């Protein structure tokens, strides 16, 4: 591994620690400093310090060290947890996070903000402790053990192995875990020093002593240890079996795996599941209880369990994103002089890590938007009989196979008439279209490209992300954006997301004799159609659902398939990319299926109307529809 692959690992791991630390620091704001919380906070900052030091980022490790010292003194009661102390601590965490960002961008990590911040931090420290005591602890150089010694040819039995884990690069504790994993294949690990718990906290200087019971001859054992690339140096001597109980198995060690490697394994397991499904469908003539059928059943269950376990590894609690939302809200609240209460509900809901990464900017944008455009000034709020402080609420919901994130505020809401007016001014809508557009649909106008002016997006988001980009980002994950809001009553944005990226819940439908899959998350509802409920106007068919009149297209017409009699099928109700509620009629809904959706390959990758294709258990192919982008005309 070269430096850059360590750097990626460092960035991911350090960001995670800072994320949790910032969330904890924010909690300390709310209740009085809890000792356990502080210890936990300390541990995360300590990890960042160690990791930064091993990467050679001395400014980062020095700042982390001072932050750590401050926490230590608070914990000892030598510094009071005053708001100022907390603020400096939070600033230090924010500064560390910016340094991580720069490390990721391959820029020098230090900047002008770090030095003055660290100065004030040290000022606090100086008030209580002796000068010099807060200097970073130098990394002690490991004293080399004698080189690999003689290797007796007798069966090894119980041996004592002292080794030095390679100091080439970062994360010696990760490599130690790898070494222990490999050693456990050579025999039974009886004792590990330092213990696993210490390895996990990152307090590890590279020296490891292991007591191992092995059936291999001493010579073979020595050769195997010598061949481990992670081991720099070792000694191997016979030992007496220790009386103490067997050390916990190495599987307790946590290993950090790059997401793309995990994804590659997930892909393989998915293919395995498909392959098993095909064996299964070939077995239909076998009697259900036959040994082969039973073995296939077991294989399917095991593959499914492996898949669920692997996917679970990709999940992180929403909490890791909370502090960034809070910080964005705080910054904007201060800048605009609008007091804001940000409430986050469902922080413990676990979300696919890559999904959360893709949604981070859209979420930040929506929170900033809510504060800037949604919430009124304190004066206007008081005049409207609302509390002066505006409320922004982010809620993460997981119900069965559905995952949703809601961002809502109690501000001025969305005014359909005003939105229509702006859309006309910007040439996105003709006055006639505006009249015809239902109020609920007018809310989606804000997701049209070009609805927000450039001046607005840069001022509001600072990142040039408009609501059209938010909508696009959500749809790119296979989800959709729902907007609700009434004038004066606040606005509500709901991101309806697929539960996992790869395995998607779909309805399998048929139209014109062809099967298609439609993701559940892409539909708002589904209902049988009948002739009485439909009317024709201007050559277009409309379906009356309650008080709504929804334009309906037959899927077989849209896709140029053999036409089935209209008006007797099922209507899939979805929202088009233009924000209009549309009905898509199919001949029948065959059933619900969970399928592995992959994007369409070249040269079809840009074909609108599809979100991908899936290979079914019997090897047949089904196209996955993207109702929002079907070319309806």
């Amino acid at each position, binding site marked *: 591994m070269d430096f850059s692959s360590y750097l990626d690992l460092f960035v991911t791991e350090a960001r995670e620690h800072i994320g949790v630390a910032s969330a904890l620091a924010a909690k300390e704001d709310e209740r009085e400093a809890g000792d356990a919380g502080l210890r936990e906070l300390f541990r995360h900052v300590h990890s960042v310090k160690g990791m930064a030091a091993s990467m050679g980022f001395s400014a980062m490790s020095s700042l982390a060290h001072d932050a750590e010292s401050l926490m230590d003194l608070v914990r000892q009661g030598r510094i009071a947890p005053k708001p100022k102390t907390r603020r400096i601590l939070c600033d230090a965490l924010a500064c560390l996070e910016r340094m991580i960002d720069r490390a990721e961008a391959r820029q020098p990590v230090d900047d002008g903000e770090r030095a003055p911040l660290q100065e004030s931090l040290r000022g606090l420290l100086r008030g209580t402790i002796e000068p010099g005591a807060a200097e970073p602890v130098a990394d002690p150089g490991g004293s080399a053990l004698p080189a690999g010694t003689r290797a007796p040819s007798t069966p090894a039995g119980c041996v004592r192995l002292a080794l030095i884990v390679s100091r080439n690069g970062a994360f010696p504790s990760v490599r130690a875990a790898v070494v222990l994993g490999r050693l456990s294949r050579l025999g039974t690990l009886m004792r590990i020093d330092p213990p696993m718990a210490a390895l996990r906290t990152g307090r590890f200087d590279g020296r490891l002593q292991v007591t191992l019971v092995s059936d291999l001859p001493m010579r073979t054992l020595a050769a195997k240890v010598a061949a481990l690339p992670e081991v720099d140096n070792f000694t191997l001597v016979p030992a007496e079996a220790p009386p103490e109980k067997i050390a916990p198995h190495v599987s307790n060690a946590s290993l950090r795996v790059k997401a793309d490697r995990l994804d590659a394994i997930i892909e393989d397991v998915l293919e395995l599941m*498909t392959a098993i499904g095909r064996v299964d469908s070939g077995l239909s003539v076998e009697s259900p209880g036959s040994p082969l059928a039973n073995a296939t059943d077991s294989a399917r269950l095991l593959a499914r369990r492996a898949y669920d376990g692997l996917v679970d590894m990709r999940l992180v609690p929403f909490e890791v994103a909370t502090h960034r939302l809070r910080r964005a809200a705080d910054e904007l609240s201060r800048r605009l002089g609008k007091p804001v209460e940000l409430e986050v509900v469902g922080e413990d809901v676990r979300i696919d890590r890559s999904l959360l990464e893709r949604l981070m900017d859209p979420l930040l944008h929506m929170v900033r938007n809510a504060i800037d455009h949604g919430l009124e000034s304190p004066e206007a709020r008081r005049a409207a009989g609302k509390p002066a402080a505006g409320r922004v609420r982010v809620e993460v919901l997981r119900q069965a196979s559905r995952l949703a994130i809601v961002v809502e505020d109690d501000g001025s809401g969305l005014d359909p008439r005003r939105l229509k007016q702006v859309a006309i001014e910007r040439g996105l809508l003709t006055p006639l279209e505006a009249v015809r557009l239902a109020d609920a649909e007018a809310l989606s106008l804000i997701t049209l490209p070009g609805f927000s002016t450039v001046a607005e997006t840069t001022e509001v988001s600072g990142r040039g992300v408009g609501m059209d980009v938010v909508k696009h980002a959500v749809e790119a994950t296979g989800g959709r954006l729902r907007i609700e809001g009434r004038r004066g009553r606040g606005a509500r944005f709901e991101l309806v997301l697929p539960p996992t990226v790869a395995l998607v819940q779909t309805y399998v439908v048929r139209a014109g004799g062809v099967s298609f899959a439609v993701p559940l998350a892409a539909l708002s509802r589904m209902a049988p159609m009948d002739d009485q409920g439909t009317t024709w106007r201007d050559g277009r068919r409309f379906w009356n659902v309650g008080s709504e009149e929804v334009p309906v297209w037959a899927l077989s017409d849209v896709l140029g398939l053999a036409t089935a009699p209209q008006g007797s099928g099922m209507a899939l109700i979805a929202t088009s990319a233009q924000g209009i509620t549309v009905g898509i009629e199919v001949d029948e809904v065959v059933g619900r299926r969970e399928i592995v959706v*992959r994007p*369409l390959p070249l040269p079809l990758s840009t074909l609108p109307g599809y979100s991908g*294709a899936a290979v079914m258990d019997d090897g047949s192919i089904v*196209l996955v529809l993207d109702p929002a982008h079907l070319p309806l005309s």
Partner: protein
Amino acid sequence: MDLLYFQIGGAPYAIPLEAIADVSPAGPVHPVPLSPPAVLGLAERRGRAIAVIDLRSLLDDPETEARGAGNVMRLAGPLEGAALFVPAEVFSGSGTPATSGHVWIDGRLHALLDAEALVKRAATFH
């Protein structure tokens, strides 16, 4: 250079071996509504859907005879996922460069196909 070569409409064509991941007899192809006409549809290979491009329609072969048995030539590298439908008879051999866009194989001039250009053309061809 190592090549695969075949005839379409009586004309000889060759494609560099390095551009090809594998060649196998064509199985069922699932049509994709609204796709460009040069794309026959999707075929299953190792649990994945690959897009099958009809080479004959891209090469403006005027013959309209029915597409019989053939091979699917899966492209390699960045074009992974795309495949060419080629005749049942495909040969491998080595050739020497001739005038631009052509190679000599066994004393006969073959038009050299560019996989990337073919895929691009298939996406825009109507």
